[in-house]
């Protein structure tokens, strides 16, 4: 045997004669000394000898093995509530991750590969070199399917998380090197590296991607960065993206645009809120990525709870996220752990029909409708069993391209269209929808809704008023004729101090223009013809938004003015409806296109739920320029 085979790692003590003498003589004493022995500290005692690795070699040896991570399940927990069950932790394969054989000093990468779905890998390295195996929390594929997913540390320059084993000599024969990324839990706290966290997140997302690929095998997933750190806490950041201080607020998805792109942020603060093992949370947020990348979301966000009467766009977005977490994991129990020792939290079952205030405005209703349409087999409590492919088809095609805003209405309408020849399935879809007090859906606009509770609108506090239905009104005739449309909204359906995204405040209309041209659009609160109980009659701050197939239509300008018409938009002295407001915009509109316009009185969505607003009517006019 060659005496050089299986050499031990070689340590070279880089010493200078003068530094050795200084060490013997006691050095300069204390901190702030000079690193005269080049051991990367500030003294000369040679206690950290520099390591020189051998990174050059010839020939090849094969190193194979498996990479796994420790998955800690989030359990519902019965009467004691949810918790992370460290005692039930299991090893799972690190699937489809980039894996490298590197020289331990980082100077070279001998070989790069990808783990398979069992975590197995095989790499080739030179003989008789120092080597370490690094697994990166990064997975990418090109062609069909294609994806680009990285789990990064937003508190460290968005560095890709990785785990690395001990370095060793490659020798002259093959070797099996198995790696394990542990949770870091020592029985009472995270005493060690939380190495498994990034891989748990990546694996959960890969599971979600597989579900999409079950419906679209050649799916192309746009790049996504998932930002996780043990320092990610539920605090408010005063730093820009990517919140290097770790104050991310909550786990969330956002498309930051530009070079920042699509990002998910995941909480990681021990004893506060960790989400790396809360797979339903991760899939929920990834569901918003799916909406943004594959489907469409017109959600306006904002505070929401399961019993709220939400703007239909928010109800659908959040209901979809929750339903999707059950669909992707094939587990309807949504668990979010938090608290000291990760021994608290909450859970709910997306397949539970006991929601408060059921209806098309309720995210819990939406989530169960979607889940019921998907699920089948044991535990299925409904007669629909469509699997995911039909839902995916509607979400990524008809609902993505419709003029109507995203809600349960276009989803169901187009799904029924796709099953038009299947009477049994149509009946099953209608039955699922009806089980949440939503009458049969016949179009993407939600036509046919009533104005009292029995007909799917909550009771009106203002006697005789109906600010919810019809959900859309066609005002094309008024636009063509130059007449005024009076639009009334209310904040009556606010709850818990939240009114921003509750029904009734935002009124929707559709219209076409008779000629392609610039159109002056005015929403005027000065007449306020019907301040229906507001505390400060005459105070308004109107806003409107025009969209084409869900995309905002850029206005030449949007400004607010007082009734006098004096331009004060720069300083906006009428910010909160102190006095009557007018909002105008000149918009290039095209004949033949079907636009939507959303009109809202700001006082009805400012979340004060107390002053102003209430039932406010605004005058909407279109004038061809």
């Amino acid at each position, binding site marked *: 045997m060659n005496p050089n085979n299986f050499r031990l790692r070689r340590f070279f003590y880089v010493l200078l004669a003068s530094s050795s003498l200084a060490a013997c003589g006691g050095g300069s004493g204390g901190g702030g000394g000079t690193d005269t022995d080049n051991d990367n500290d500030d003294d000369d005692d040679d206690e950290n000898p520099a390591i020189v690795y051998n990174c050059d070699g010839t020939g090849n040896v094969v190193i194979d093995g498996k990479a796994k991570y420790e998955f800690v399940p989030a359990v519902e927990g019965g009467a004691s509530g949810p918790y992370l069950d460290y005692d039930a932790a299991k090893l799972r394969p690190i699937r489809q991750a980039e894996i490298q054989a590197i020289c331990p000093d980082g100077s070279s990468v001998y070989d790069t590969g990808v783990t398979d779905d069992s975590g197995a890998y095989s790499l080739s390295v030179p003989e008789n070199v120092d080597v370490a195996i690094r697994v990166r929390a990064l997975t990418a594929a090109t062609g069909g399917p294609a994806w680009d997913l990285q789990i990064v540390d937003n508190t460290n320059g968005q560095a890709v998380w990785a785990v690395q084993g001990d370095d060793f000599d490659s020798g002259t024969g093959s070797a099996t090197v198995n790696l394990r990324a*542990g949770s870091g839990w020592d029985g009472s706290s995270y005493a060690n590296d*939380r190495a498994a966290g990034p891989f748990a997140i990546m694996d959960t997302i890969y599971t979600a991607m597989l579900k999409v690929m079950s419906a679209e095998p050649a799916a192309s997933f746009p790049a996504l960065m998932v930002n996780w750190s043990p320092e990610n806490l539920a605090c408010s950041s005063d730093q820009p993206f990517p919140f290097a201080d770790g104050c991310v607020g909550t786990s969330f998805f956002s498309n930051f645009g530009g070079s920042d792109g699509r990002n998910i942020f995941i909480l990681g603060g021990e004893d506060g809120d960790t989400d790396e093992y809360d797979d339903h949370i991760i899939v929920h947020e990834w569901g918003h990525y799916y909406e943004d990348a594959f489907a469409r979301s017109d959600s306006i966000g904002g505070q929401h709870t399961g019993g709220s009467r939400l703007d239909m766009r928010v109800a659908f977005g959040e209901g979809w996220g929750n339903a999707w977490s059950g669909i992707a994991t094939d587990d309807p129990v949504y668990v979010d752990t938090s608290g000291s020792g990760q021994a608290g939290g909450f859970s709910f079952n997306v397949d539970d029909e006991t929601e408060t205030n059921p209806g098309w405005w309720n995210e819990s209703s939406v989530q169960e409708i979607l889940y019921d349409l998907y699920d089948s087999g044991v535990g299925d409590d409904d007669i629909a069993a469509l699997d995911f492919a039909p839902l995916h088809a509607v979400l990524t095609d008809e609902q993505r391209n419709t003029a109507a805003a995203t809600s349960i209405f276009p989803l169901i309408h187009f799904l029924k269209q796709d099953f038009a020849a299947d009477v049994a399935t149509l009946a099953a879809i209608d039955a699922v929808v009806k089980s949440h007090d939503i009458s049969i859906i016949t179009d993407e606009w939600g036509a046919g809704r009533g104005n009292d509770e029995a007909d799917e609108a909550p009771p009106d506090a203002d006697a005789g008023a109906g600010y919810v239905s019809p959900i859309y009104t066609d005002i094309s005739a008024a636009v063509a004729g130059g007449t005024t449309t009076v639009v009334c909204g209310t904040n009556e359906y606010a709850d818990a101090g939240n009114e921003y995204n509750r029904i009734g405040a935002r009124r929707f209309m559709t219209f076409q223009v008779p000629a392609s041209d610039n159109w002056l659009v005015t929403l005027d609160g000065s007449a306020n013809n019907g301040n229906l109980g507001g505390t400060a009659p005459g105070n308004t701050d109107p806003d409107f*938004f025009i969209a084409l197939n869900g995309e905002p239509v850029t206005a030449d300008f949007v400004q607010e003015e007082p009734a006098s018409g004096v331009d004060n938009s720069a300083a906006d002295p009428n910010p909160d409806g102190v006095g009557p407001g007018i909002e105008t915009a000149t918009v290039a509109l095209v004949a033949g296109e079907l636009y939507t316009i959303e009109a809202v009185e700001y006082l009805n969505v400012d979340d004060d739920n107390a002053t102003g607003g209430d039932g406010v009517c605004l005058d909407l006019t279109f004038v061809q320029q």
Partner: protein
Amino acid sequence: MRRLIIAAISGTLLVAPLVQPAAAKPVAELPEATSAMPYRSPGKPSHPISVDVVMDAPLKAGTESTGRLSIHSALPLRSLDVLLKPEAGLTVLSNGLMEKRVNGVAANKAVTMPLKVTPGSDAARELRVVIRAVKENGTVVTREAGLLLGDEPKKHSKVLREEGTQAATGVQDQDAVMKAEQEITRH
């Protein structure tokens, strides 16, 4: 029976109840939300932010022109970061405005800042405005749009929308590396 009537009446189309409700507003009795589901995601940032530029005088080549840039948000914001990217041939002279943070904008949803530009020629030039805004709930929205500044002292405005794609992948020597347990078997 309550009826909702949508009809054109005297040149006015109503998207409202025909019957005007009483002035006194009954208190809405809405049940407390009983679900334990908290707010988990802001979803896609979608709330409109508009930007206006109003110049005090027509722009002339080589001459400093003053005006103001204002940003209006449909929702209250905690802070704004504003970055101006002038097209070649347009010089922005505002002190410190090239990259500016404005805090405390939640009160009035709008901020105004002075603007000084010097165009290199009389031709219209684009001024790109990049905004990163922190909403009251701590989430961040990013918007970018270009305003074409012409030779008239008029208002130039846009509603800002998201643009762009994902950044490149990381570099190996920048990885955040943690220790893995390892088992080696020699063959």
